[in-house]
């Protein structure tokens, strides 16, 4: 634990320093910017809520990437799986009769979101398992396919009133907001925490998780021990896609209540950062998602002080700093006893 704290401290301090240098370059006082960022994010209920809202989607996509990573699969297509989830969740939600009660509408829409994401990713897994198609290539290509299909369907069927927004979903399918100054954070946050717990349980406590990790570490050994590598790949990708698709619950059911083209764009890619930052552990992914969410929400809070490019850069700086500080601490601590001797 001490090791993680030290690494985190180094990463935060290094990112702070780089950010401060950049702020001085654009001629703003770092104290002022950081101060404003923290103050506006944590003292304003609304901004805090928006940070949690952003973190919700990021965490789900991060969990998706992390889960696939456990099975040795780099799911770079969370973006497309999320888009598929948005499409399915919002169309089905809009097709439900307006009077559908929440206990029916919410599970149906959640299932649609997860199912669509899972279907897209499952296809990637199937291609990998049966044809040996590399999951990075097929999933990144499916991102384009899903985006194209989504926009085409939008243009042909879904957009109403000359906008790029579809018809609203049934009121019963809307997830309740959590208040926080009228911010967008909604019950999907609870779903996300439950999903993180489920992922943790699945990977650490079940034979599925063991099999997935075995395949991730050494497919040959797993196969020889009687684990069906192909099945694991399909299942892990499907589960991963389902998690990414669930992010649609946050965006559609909890926020927009309608199909909108490009909803959640880029979240899937940032989800990769969240998974890597969180070192593939569910708890780590949640923390990483909160950090990235803070940078997003906080970045907006100081938008008038510094250019948006600066906060964009900071995301990369933080990821880089964490990536470098973790092995640094590990090595320094491994060396330490010898130096003492």
């Amino acid at each position, binding site marked *: 634990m001490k090791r993680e704290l030290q690494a985190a401290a180094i990463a935060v301090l290094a990112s702070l320093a780089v950010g401060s240098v950049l702020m001085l370059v654009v001629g703003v006082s770092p104290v002022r910017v950081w101060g404003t960022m923290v103050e506006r994010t944590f003292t304003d209920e609304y901004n805090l809520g928006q940070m949690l809202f952003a973190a919700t989607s990021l965490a789900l996509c991060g969990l998706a990437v992390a889960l696939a990573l456990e099975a040795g699969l780099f799911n770079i297509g969370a973006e497309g799986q999320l888009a598929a989830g948005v499409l399915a969740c919002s169309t089905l939600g809009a097709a439900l009769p307006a009077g559908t009660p929440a206990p029916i509408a919410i599970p149906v829409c959640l299932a649609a979101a997860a199912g669509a994401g899972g279907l897209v990713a499952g296809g990637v897994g199937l291609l990998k398992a049966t044809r040996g198609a590399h999951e990075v290539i097929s999933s990144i290509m499916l991102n384009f396919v899903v985006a194209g299909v989504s926009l085409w369907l939008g243009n042909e069927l879904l957009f109403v009133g000359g906008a790029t927004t579809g018809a609203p979903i049934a009121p019963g399918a809307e997830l309740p907001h959590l208040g926080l100054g009228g911010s967008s954070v909604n019950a999907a946050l609870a779903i996300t925490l439950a999903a993180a717990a489920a992922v943790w349980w699945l990977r650490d406590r079940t034979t599925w*998780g063991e099999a997935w990790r075995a395949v991730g*570490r*050494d497919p040959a*050994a797993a196969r020889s021990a009687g*684990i069906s590598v192909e099945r694991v790949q399909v299942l892990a990708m499907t589960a991963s896609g389902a998690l990414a698709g669930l992010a649609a619950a946050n965006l559609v059911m909890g926020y927009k209540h309608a199909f909108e083209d490009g909803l959640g764009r880029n979240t899937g890619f940032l989800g990769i950062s969240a998974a890597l930052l969180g070192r593939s552990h569910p708890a780590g992914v949640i923390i990483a998602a909160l950090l990235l969410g803070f940078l997003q929400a906080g970045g907006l809070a100081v938008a008038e002080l510094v250019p948006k490019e600066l906060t964009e850069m900071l995301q990369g700086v933080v990821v880089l700093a964490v990536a470098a500080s973790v092995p640094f601490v590990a090595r320094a601590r491994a060396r330490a006893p010898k130096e003492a001797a």
Partner: protein
Amino acid sequence: MTRALAIEAEVTKRYGARTVLAGATLAVRRGTVHALVGENGAGKSTLVKVIAGIVRGDGGTLGLGDRVIPAGDWDRVRARAARIGIVQQHGASAGTLSVVENAVLGAEPVRAGLLALDGVAAALRAQGRAIGMDVDPHARVETLSLGAAQRAEIVAALHAGADILILDEPTAVLAPVEVEGMLAMLRDLAARGVTIVIVTHKLDEVRAVADDVTVLREGRTVATFSRRPTAAASGDPLGDRPEGFSAASGPLDPAAIARAMVGAELPQPTLLPEPPATAPAMLELADVTVGTALTRATLRVRRGEVVGVAGVDGNGQRELALAIAGLVPATGAVAIGGAAAAGTSPARRLALGLAHIPEDRHRGGLLLDATIAANLALGRRDVTGRFVVDRAAVAKHAAARIVELDIRPADPAAVVRGLSGGNQQKVVVGRELSRPRLRAVVACQPTRGVDLGAVARIHDRLRAVAVAGAGVLVISADLDELLALCHRIVVLLRGAIAGEVGGDALRAPGARAALGALMTGATAA
């Protein structure tokens, strides 16, 4: 002045908290073959790696010729300059490179900016032929069997022309004829003034080839032996020992060496009684064919029977094991415990009562970065439970296997990568042979690169499962192992079963010769 000692080393090496070498000493006379023996984990490989500059020592000194260097300052570049060649146990060849590309690495002949490899390739081919080890210089290493890859490395090391040649377990993957050829070649090299250090477990090889023997145990030198017991009196350099060199010494007596290695007498293996001819077949193969590597293999292993598969490495043994385990596409019939298994998944075959010990624990045997407990429970739903992992059961299972096979460290949470080869192999064996309702066992090279103590343990387990009612098929390049275990031995040659030696013929003095002839295709039995 040229000193008579080529190597005089005293080395300490720690990995983290674990001390691998605690001031182990080694003194090698120039122009001799020096055997370095000891159980797995005794530090043999580490010691020669320090000498070859591949691993940096933490303390101690290396005396090489008339130089004395702190062990911490030695590295591979300097060792290379000092003409120290090494063939490592698991090979150091890059798999995607060809044999000749690996051979020239570091000293590439270049003409007009491009590599000029034809000359080296021809030289390798000639060198190989000269010592009875055919190599294909242009073959990619990853397409070769372990044995062929090892042969290629030995040939390459000889080609590089070392003054001191270190061979770490060179014979582990060689066929008996090749072993003979190589040992003869080592003697020949020594006669020409090359100093040779050979790390091995096999005492008959030691007796056949070594001038001197150093025995390591737990990172310390515990004994030295010499073919010339009077050498000390005649000013033998072994008498000129470094400080703290307090080992026993004596002539080359295999029993004494073995005692020094394990610190106790080895139990004599007992041969199992042959099962009755009426015993039901537990493993049956009919016309099993795998591409061109294995053709129409037909084989029957009865309950309680141990059948050996001998052959020069690369004659279809690997494919035979994989075909039985369902890990390669194969045609023909396979029955496990009387149930047809052809075309079924590996999982189904394991469920029918098969256990499979894969050829290479590093390629498909173990999750190297997982713990001992996790590896012992890998794929074992009978231990873990169907969905939710029963962690108490996993811990109990691990503890039982650790005791049963004396796995060290006896810590279920230890990561397998940090274990010695023998203990890694014990983990594989422990997992496979503890399966419930075992009917058939395929053990592929079950003791390759494993020390004497571990060999005994593993053989005991194989016998035990046979007694308990399984049919055991042992595939091994080590004829001694097969002779010690098996009721019958079949020989694979170029993917086909070339013959079989069993019953009294196997215990007859000519058995070894008969098998050797089958393996090389000299006769058909």
